[in-house]
């Protein structure tokens, strides 16, 4: 994605997203409120631009389609891992074997790294404790869960996600 050329289009998409957010939250469709919403969305988008906090990283519209393929898979993983952790909690013996795992993530961009780290943390049973481009430090509830994060399918899928802009 060329950063310079798409600046205006990107700002417009921020504006549209904000306006949609306003409309859905308010639920009133009177002329005054519609106009007030448009004004607010425009003001917020311009202010955010002035504060230099709108960029493809903060509002990654270019990933919108790719994420639709990634999230269902992530939800499935969360459900599976959540079930496992629930079984451990309900087990009277509490069969845990907590481990710390270090590995190098394969993502190149900050956005990809954050997506990967957050996906690991969202999956019950594994938590990213330290995240840097060189190394992730993951705390896992069981040794088996710890083994699954190294060179995982999640890693590959997030790399594909970040490469698809």
């Amino acid at each position: 994605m060329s950063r310079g050329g798409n600046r205006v289009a990107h700002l417009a998409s921020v504006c549209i997203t904000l306006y949609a957010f306003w409309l859905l939250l308010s639920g009133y469709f009177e002329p005054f409120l519609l106009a007030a919403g448009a004004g607010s969305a425009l003001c917020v988008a311009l202010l955010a631009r002035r504060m230099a906090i709108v960029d493809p990283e903060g509002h990654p519209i270019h990933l919108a389609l790719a994420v639709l393929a990634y999230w269902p898979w992530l939800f499935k993983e969360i459900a599976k891992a959540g079930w496992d952790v629930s079984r451990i909690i309900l087990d009277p013996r509490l069969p845990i074997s907590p481990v710390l795992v270090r590995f190098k993530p394969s993502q190149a961009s900050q956005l990809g790294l954050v997506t990967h780290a957050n996906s690991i943390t969202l999956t019950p049973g594994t938590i990213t404790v330290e995240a840097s481009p060189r190394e992730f430090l993951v705390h896992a509830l069981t040794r088996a869960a710890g083994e699954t994060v190294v060179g995982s399918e999640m890693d590959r899928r997030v790399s594909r996600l970040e490469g698809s802009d």
Partner: protein
Amino acid sequence: MNTVVDILSWGFLLAGGAFCAIGALGLVRMPDFYTRMHAAGVTDTLGAGLMLFGMMLQAGLSLVTVKLIMIGLLIFFTSPSATHALARAARARGLQPLLATGKGPSKRS
């Protein structure tokens, strides 16, 4: 048709409530801080997700469902960030995690 949706949504609501309670139970049962965070993760993801989905089925296609989706997205994006910040802060403060020794699951009661 309506009854089917009703029963489905009740199922999701009750399952979500059960997972919330299980996560909170884990919060009490787990032996150290880092393992407790995993238990809280069950509440934040499975519990909240299933409950919100159950309520969405009740609400049907309306602005209420949109707001439920917003609540879901809010939890989805902020819960891992908060958890990560918490784990990082605890580690930076020098809180050592309890680690398994030897082979096989550690037995603690």
